[in-house]
């Protein structure tokens, strides 16, 4: 059914993460967790998958002695997201 859609992005949580990151320059892990309402473990796994695909950059640092993870979409991620939306739109047009 969705053979042509990018399998990395065609997942509820990964798509949610990328949609947020496309709207901002960068976002902290805690922010993504709050907006997606996902568990920390689940979010962490999906962020790693997006990172491995080269769709997002993950920078780890310390802020007030607490670990801080900042995520940012890469140009490859932007391109993949745009293609995904285009594919989705053409699929929905065909369906109509």
């Amino acid at each position: 059914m969705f053979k042509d859609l990018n399998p990395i992005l065609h997942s509820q949580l990964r798509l949610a993460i990328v949609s947020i990151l496309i709207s901002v320059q960068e976002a902290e892990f805690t922010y993504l967790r709050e907006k997606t309402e996902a568990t920390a473990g689940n979010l962490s796994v999906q962020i790693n998958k997006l990172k491995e695909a080269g769709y997002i950059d993950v920078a780890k640092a310390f802020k007030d002695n607490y670990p801080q993870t900042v995520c940012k979409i890469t140009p490859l991620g932007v391109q993949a997201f745009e293609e995904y939306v285009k594919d989705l739109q053409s699929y929905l047009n065909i369906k109509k």
Partner: protein
Amino acid sequence: MEQEKELTGQESLELISRMISKAKRDYYDTGLSSLLWGSTITFCSLIAFVNYYLKWSVFDYVWFLTFVAVIIQGMISAREKKLRRRKGHDEDLMSGIWISFAIAMFLVSWVLSWFNLPFLTSIYMIIYGIPTFTTGYARRFRPMLIGGIACWVFSMLAIFTPFPYVMLYMAASAQLAWFIPGLILRKRYLKANKENV
């Protein structure tokens, strides 16, 4: 949110739209910087106006309060940066515009202090209008757009107005460009914070 759930095309589009809207709606200026500068410039202008009649020498230095405001601004910016969990696409651009405005104001004040120019207040208000109008335009925030235009209108009126009355224009510019927009931003910010609790 479960990542395993199979999404239909419609659900995917809805999810994208919901997340983008959440992230965009989430940006709220605290309004503190606008309130700080709106109050400082209004206060200094009104003191300069009153002091024309009082002639108290201590009030001649009232504009040095802007240096204190710069320090407070630094503290506000540092605190906002510390609390920020997401960074919008235009935030660096906006910071660049306001930092260049501060540098331009300092340089203009320094350069013009070498000459006894009659339209100094007009020049200041023209410069006030630039970042204010740009911010209002870029963020589609009408109060600042109007504030920026008000600065330019007052700068023209100031040419035909003698001192100390130009100081009233300066105070009005600060109110319209920063203080009133700052109050609106602050109210929005506090409301958004209350909703997120």
